[in-house]
């Protein structure tokens, strides 16, 4: 341990994504608790007078501590009468359910007390100072942690890939980001853009009674010719997928068609939606253009592909093909292990929080009380 500069102080690492919340001990290679970020809640009867609260943003806003809520694996995925599903990350950050989520992960799944462990929390690159201060407040005030630190997911992904500077392509459930990271924990922030993607979530069959989304895919691949599709079907092994309704069918080119949206937008899609987000090669070009020309070569030779969304079959190859078109020299680092891809951010946090040299960076409780919220911005830069 000492050989690698590690010194474990049994810190906790919490990585909140839009699909799942990962928590575990620093120094481990996989998180101990992986629970869905979505949660179920049943509003008290008093508020149901407004009528059936629609799922989503409005419902989340209505969430209070009073509502009966269900977290974890037996939370949203179990059918309950009148249960609504909320997500604190998707459709705007909502802090109200986050303490409960974390508490569930730490207390119920990991069975440990946050008051005894320093806690490292991850944040997306586009997090606002207000949000990180709020997070620090939650951890210090509600969980009584002895020490706290908040680190950037992109930076942590860079660490998990064993690099100092990298261009991190993170394809998550609802977000895809391309973030350049230079010289460790200080990404060039001005080049970060927020690009939400809804198309991956639509692939998931989260609820019962959901109609098969097969028709939706049809219009996505409308730009392709019939002969091409037939050719593809012949060459790619189709896979059978059974929906919860029992509807099942064979999926051939459609499996690749979904990932295709990361690289190419059909004219119909662009015409129908004015602010359709950019595709990944466009994002890469943009973010590189925002960087210093001297750094471009460094970054493009250190492309880190991470996030659960990057596990689409053939996505790495496709990305390589796209990059080869515009860059003569590049190198993509994509861990072959799916766990490393899905929990790259958590893994980087685990590495960081178990480093002996990192322990001077913790924001201690004492400092929090002394300096207040400003310390977060000063320390976690």
């Amino acid at each position, binding site marked *: 341990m000492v050989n690698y500069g590690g010194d474990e*102080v049994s810190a906790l690492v919490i990585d909140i994504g839009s699909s799942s919340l990962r928590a575990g001990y620093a120094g481990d290679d996989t998180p101990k608790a992986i629970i869905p970020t979505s949660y179920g809640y049943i509003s008290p009867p008093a508020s149901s007078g407004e009528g059936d609260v629609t799922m989503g943003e409005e419902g989340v806003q209505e969430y209070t501590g009073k509502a009966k809520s269900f977290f974890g694996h037996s939370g949203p995925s179990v059918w309950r009468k009148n249960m609504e599903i909320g997500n604190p990350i998707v459709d705007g950050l909502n802090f109200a359910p986050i303490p409960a989520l974390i508490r569930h992960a730490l207390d119920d799944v990991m069975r440990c007390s946050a008051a005894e462990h320093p806690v490292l929390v991850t944040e997306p690159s586009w997090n606002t100072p207000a949000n990180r201060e709020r997070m620090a407040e939650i951890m210090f005030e509600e969980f009584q942690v002895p020490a706290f630190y908040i680190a950037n997911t992109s930076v942590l992904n860079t660490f998990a890939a064993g690099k100092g500077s990298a261009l991190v392509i993170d394809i998550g459930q609802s977000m895809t980001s391309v973030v350049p990271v*230079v010289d460790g924990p200080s990404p060039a922030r001005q080049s970060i853009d927020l690009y939400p993607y809804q198309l991956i979530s639509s692939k998931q069959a989260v609820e019962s009674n959901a109609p098969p989304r097969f028709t939706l895919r049809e219009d996505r691949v409308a730009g392709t010719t019939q002969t091409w599709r037939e050719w593809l079907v012949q060459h790619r092994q189709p896979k059978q997928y059974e929906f919860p309704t029992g509807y099942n069918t064979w999926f051939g080119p459609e499996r690749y068609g979904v990932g295709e949206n990361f690289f190419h937008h059909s004219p119909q899609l662009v015409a129908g939606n004015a602010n359709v987000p950019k595709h990944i090669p466009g994002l890469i070009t943009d973010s590189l253009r925002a960087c*210093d020309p001297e750094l471009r070569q460094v970054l493009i030779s250190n492309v880190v592909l991470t996030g659960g969304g990057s596990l689409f079959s053939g996505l790495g190859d496709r990305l390589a093909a796209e990059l080869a078109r515009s860059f003569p020299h590049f190198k993509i680092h994509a861990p072959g292990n799916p766990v490393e891809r899905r929990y790259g951010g958590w893994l980087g946090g685990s590495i960081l929080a178990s480093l002996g040299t990192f*322990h001077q960076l913790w924001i201690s*409780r004492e400092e929090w009380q002394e300096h207040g919220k400003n310390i977060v911005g000063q320390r976690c830069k």
Partner: protein
Amino acid sequence: MATAADVRSILSIPSTSIAGPSQPRKPSVSVNRKPEGISRELYSLIGPSAPALAAQLAKPRLKQKPNLGGGGKVKWEWRKFRNSARSDSLELSHWVKASQDADAEYKFAKYDKKPTVYQWSQDEYSRHLEDSDWTKEETEYLFKIANEYDLRWYIIHDRYEYPNGRERELEDLKDRYYSVCRKLIRNRTWAGDEASRNALLLSFHYDKERETIRRKYVASLANRTPDQIQEEEALYVELKRLEQNERQFKKDRENLLRTLAGIDSGLPDIVEDDASLIINDPKKKRFKGDIDVPQTPILTAPVMKRPPAVNKNAVYDATHCIIRNDPPSNAPATKVAHTPAFMRSFKIPYPKAAIAPKVNSLLTELGVSGSRLVMPTQANCQHLESVMDAAMNLVELKKVLDKVNQDIEVLKARLELKDDMRDSASVADGMEEAESENRRSRSVTSGRGRKSVECILDLLLCYPNYFLRVVVQCLSLLLIPLSPLPQGGQESGKNARSLSYTGIIRCCMQLLLEVTIFDVELATCSAEKVLRFGLHWLYS
């Protein structure tokens, strides 16, 4: 009750002969223990008198087992620690060995390194650091942010937001920072020596112009169009190809040189000198064409490489004008004896250095260029060789002639002197006798001389005309009646005469020999004749 042992001891009978039942035999091992590492059977055979052997037979010691820290039990403690790199009193806990000192410095605290922070007073700023482009406040802001981000300039540039400040390039920031540091170092009193100060100054060196140009280049490199990149790559490939061609050419040339120079580069089919005599034997036979000689496998490889000089393709040779020079069969197959490939024109003999200019001038007079042949065929080469030989001989001959002429002059002068002496003093009787003797011998001489003259005249008829003068002069020399030298009486006189005649004959013979080289047949016969004549004349 007395036992058998007691009886024996009383009777002083050795107890070992018969063991008594009541006295079990003591194991001898207890006295002389079997040494370690020797088998029991062997020990009983050789007894205790083999300590050296036993030491050698000691059991092989296996690799020592690793010592895993004392008794194998290490106590670990979950202990709180303070990090001295922190300013607050945060206490974290980690596992440490219980034996470790509790008050020891946290071992990762030493990695907390900060760059030197340069600060200045108002006075210093106004004296040294004034810059029209930078205010004091902005400079201070720059230093603050630079230290905050540990001089990671890309990030400093990214985060640099001075309120109401100008837009700064990365180069501007770096230049300002380093120039301020330089000025401070230069103007402050320095504790160390000059060298370390200069080294520090050098580490803060920053050339803004150069960096800007470099950045421009980098940007232009990044902004190349695919066409340009392709062109560049094509050029690169072309360059590589050219380089490879060059290398190939060089290699070929070297190979050629190796073929020509042979020895230096070490041909594979040349056996080294130090190879044993056995090697030479089959090789010699091999050159004579005896292929069936069995050879050792070591020799086979080099020998087989030599192209066999077989006559069966004589027809082929004839049609293609190939003339084979068989290697000398008696030459040893060593490096020294090896003749590398050569050009025929290289083998034309050069005149000796002493006479080279004369020969060359002679050849130019004849209209022959001796240095280089336009068409060095075999016939031409042979022709040139013969001409060169003739010229050389001619020149040599001329030299000899000159020498002989001079000799004649000297002798003539001496003869005249002699005649004068004889005319003046012919009084003494002893002299009379000597005179008569002399006359007799002279007649003999002239008789023989005439005979030889005839012989040489015969030869003369066959000679080219420009040698005529030489020979005639020789003859005239022979025909001159020589008188014995007056000094030293009869005996010495005869001796002297014969000596002088010998010299003349030798000259003549040399002349003839050299003259006759031009015609081999003539040379042999005439040389023989002259020789015989000369010898006869001398020893008769």
